[in-house]
C-alpha cells in the first residue's frame, strides 16, 4: 500500500475528527485546521514529485486485486489537482482565521472545511467510478452545510437551489453508474476502459456517455445547466465562496476530463464535437451574464461559468496541446479565481458592501489592494505575462491547429469581454471618485488593521504565485504537457491499475 496515495484522504479526515473532539475550543480548532491544511499541502507536493519521477501510482485498498477491490490511483492530473486542493485549503484556512465570525466557527466551520477537502482529494484520487460517486457525495454534504451555515435568508434560498440541483445530478450519476455496470460488468475505471471498447452496442454506450455528460455537466456548471451557480455561490461568507469557486466546479471538470479521455473515446467525432459546442455556449453565456451584474460576487460567479467553457474546450479539441492547455488552465484558474474572491472579501472588509455603486475611491484608500486585485483580474482576462495568457495561448493555438476557427474566435471575443467586466469592477470600485460618505457608512469603513492585514497574506501569496506561473510558464507547461500525454495514452494508466497482464 502506497502511503502517499492514502494520506491526502486520511489527513483531512483525522483533522476533522480531532477538530470535532475540540468542539468547544475554537482556538484549538483553528490551530488544528491550519496544521491539517499544511500537512495536506506537503503530502500533495510529495505525491506530485513522486508521480513525476516514477510514473503513475496505484494502490489496492484491502489488497483485493484490481478489478474487484477499490483502487486509488494518481496520474499527473490527479496529483496536480490534489496539490491545488491542498494549496486552496491552506490559503482559505489562513483567510478564514481573519474573516469567519465566531458563530460560524462554533458551529463546526473548520471540521466541515476539512471534510470538504477530504471529499475533493478522494474524488481526484479514486480509480473506481462508484467511489467517485461516493466522494462526490462526501464533498457535497460538506458543501451543503457550508452553504447554509449561518442561516441567513439569502443563504438558505441559495442552499435550496444548490442542494436540489446537486441531488438531481447525483441521482443521474448513480443511474448512469448502474447502467454502466449492467453493460460492462465492472466499475474499475481502468477495467472499464478495456471492457467498453469490447461492447458492441454503440447506441447504449453513447446514451451512457450523454448521461455522464449531463450529470458532470451540472456539477461543472456548463451551459445550459449552470443556473444554480450564480444563484447560490455568492450567498455564503467569502472564504466559503472562494473555496467553492476554486475547487468544487473543478471537480466536475476533472470528472468530465477523466470520463471522456478514459472511458468514452469510441466516437469522439460526435461526443467531443458536442462538448465543443457546449464549451462555446458556456463561455458566451457566462461572460454575458457577468456583464449584466453590478455586484462583485455575482460578476465573479458568472465568470466561473465562462471560464469552465475554456477548460471544456481543451477537452473537446482532444489533441495533446489542447489537453495540456486544459490542465494549465485548471491550474491557473483555481488559483486566480480563489484569489479574486478573496480580494472581493477584502473590499467588503474595507467598505462593508459588494455593490459596485456603493464602492469607489479604493485606489486612494488602499493602493496595495488595488494592485492585488489587478494581478488576478488581468490574469483571468489573459494579459501577458500572467498565467492566464499562457493558458489561453495554448488553447487558441490548439484550436487553430485543429482548424476549429469558430471556437477560437469565440474564445478571443470572450477574453475581450472578460477584460471589460474586470475593468468594470476596477473602474467602479477602485478608480472612480468616492461618493460623499454618509453617516451610516462611516462605521463600516473603519476596519481594524490587524485582521485586514491578515486577509492580505493569502491574497498576496496567490498573486505572487500567479505571476510566478506566468514567468516560469515553460516548466509548468511541461508538467501540463506530460499530464495531457498520460490522458491521451491511457495504456500506462490501465497497466498500472490492473497489473502487467
Amino acid at each position, binding site marked *: 500500500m502506497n502511503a502517499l496515495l492514502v494520506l491526502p484522504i486520511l489527513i483531512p479526515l483525522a483533522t476533522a475528527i480531532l477538530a470535532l473532539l475540540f468542539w468547544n475550543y475554537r482556538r484549538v480548532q483553528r490551530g488544528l485546521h491550519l496544521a491539517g491544511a499544511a500537512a495536506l499541502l506537503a503530502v500533495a507536493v510529495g505525491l506530485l514529485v513522486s508521480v513525476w519521477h516514477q510514473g503513475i501510482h496505484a494502490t489496492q485498498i484491502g489488497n483485493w486485486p484490481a478489478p474487484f477491490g477499490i483502487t486509488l490511483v494518481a496520474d499527473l492530473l490527479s496529483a496536480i489537482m490534489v496539490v491545488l486542493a491542498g494549496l486552496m485549503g491552506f490559503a482559505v484556512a489562513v483567510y478564514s482565521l481573519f474573516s469567519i465570525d465566531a458563530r460560524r466557527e462554533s458551529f463546526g466551520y473548520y471540521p466541515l472545511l476539512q471534510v470538504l477537502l477530504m471529499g475533493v482529494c478522494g474524488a481526484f484520487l479514486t480509480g473506481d467510478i462508484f467511489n467517485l460517486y461516493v466522494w462526490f457525495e462526501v464533498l457535497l*454534504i460538506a458543501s*451543503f452545510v457550508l452553504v447554509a451555515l449561518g*442561516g441567513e435568508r439569502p443563504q*438558505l*434560498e441559495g*442552499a435550496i437551489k444548490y*442542494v436540489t440541483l446537486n*441531488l438531481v445530478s447525483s441521482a443521474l450519476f*448513480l443511474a448512469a453508474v448502474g447502467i454502466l455496470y449492467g453493460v460492462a460488468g465492472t466499475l474499475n475505471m481502468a477495467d472499464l476502459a478495456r471492457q467498453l471498447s469490447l461492447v458492441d452496442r454503440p447506441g447504449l454506450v453513447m446514451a451512457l456517455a450523454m448521461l455522464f455528460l449531463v450529470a458532470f455537466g451540472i456539477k461543472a456548471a456548463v451551459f445550459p445547466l449552470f443556473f444554480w451557480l450564480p444563484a*447560490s455561490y455568492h450567498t455564503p461568507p467569502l472564504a466559503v465562496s472562494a473555496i467553492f469557486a476554486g475547487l468544487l466546479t473543478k471537480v466536475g471538470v476533472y470528472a468530465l476530463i477523466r470520463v471522456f479521455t478514459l472511458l468514452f473515446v469510441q466516437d469522439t467525432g460526435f461526443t467531443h464535437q458536442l462538448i465543443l459546442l457546449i464549451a462555446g455556449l458556456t463561455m458566451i453565456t457566462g461572460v454575458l451574464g457577468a456583464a449584466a451584474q453590478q455586484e462583485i460576487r455575482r460578476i465573479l460567479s458568472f465568470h466561473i461559468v465562462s471560464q469552465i467553457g475554456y477548460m471544456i474546450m481543451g477537452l473537446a479539441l482532444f489533441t495533446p496541446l489542447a489537453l495540456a492547455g486544459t490542465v494549465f488552465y485548471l491550474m491557473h484558474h483555481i488559483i486566480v479565481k480563489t484569489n479574486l474572491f478573496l480580494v472581493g472579501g477584502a473590499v467588503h472588509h474595507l467598505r462593508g458592501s459588494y455593490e459596485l455603486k456603493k464602492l469607489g475611491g479604493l485606489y486612494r484608500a488602499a493602493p496595495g489592494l488595488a494592485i492585488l486585485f489587478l494581478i488576478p483580474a488581468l490574469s483571468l482576462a489573459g494579459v501577458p505575462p500572467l498565467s492566464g495568457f499562457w493558458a489561453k495561448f495554448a488553447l487558441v493555438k490548439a484550436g487553430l491547429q485543429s482548424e476549429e476557427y469558430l471556437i477560437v474566435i469565440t474564445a478571443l471575443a470572450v477574453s475581450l469581454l472578460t477584460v471589460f467586466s474586470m475593468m468594470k469592477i476596477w473602474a467602479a470600485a477602485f478608480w472612480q471618485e468616492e461618493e460623499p460618505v454618509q453617516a451610516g457608512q462611516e462605521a463600516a469603513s473603519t476596519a481594524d488593521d490587524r485582521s485586514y492585514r491578515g486577509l492580505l497574506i493569502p491574497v498576496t501569496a496567490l498573486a505572487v504565485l500567479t505571476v510566478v506561473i506566468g514567468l516560469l510558464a515553460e516548466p509548468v507547461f511541461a508538467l501540463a504537457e506530460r499530464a495531457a500525454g498520460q490522458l491521451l495514452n491511457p495504456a500506462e494508466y490501465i497497466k498500472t491499475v490492473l497489473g502487467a497482464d
Partner: protein
Amino acid sequence: METVLAVVIGGLYAAGLYLMLRRSIVKLILGLAILGHAANLLVFTVGRLTPSQPPIVLPGATTPAEPFADPLPQALILTAIVIGFGVQAFALVLLKRAYQTVGTDDLDEMKSTDT
C-alpha cells in the same frame, strides 16, 4: 419480472420529477427522495435478476457455488441508500430552517438570490 420493474422505475422517475416541479419545498424534497429510490431500483434491476443462490463461499471452497447472484449491485444500493438517507435528513432540516427564516414554503417566493 424485469418488465414490471422497468415500469415501476419509469413511474417513480415520472412521479419524482412531477413532484419536483411543484412549488412547495416539501414536495420538492419528496420528489428528490423518490428520484433517489428510482435510481436505486434501476441499479438493482440492471444488475440482472436471477433465481440463484446467495454468493456465499462454503467451507473448504475458494469460490461460491454456481449459479450465484451478483452481490455487487446490492452493495452499491446499500451505499447509495445510506447516502440518500443522510442527504434527505439534511434536506429536511434545511427545509425547516428555510421555512422559519423566509416565512413561506413557496419556491416562487424564494428568488431574491436569482440573477
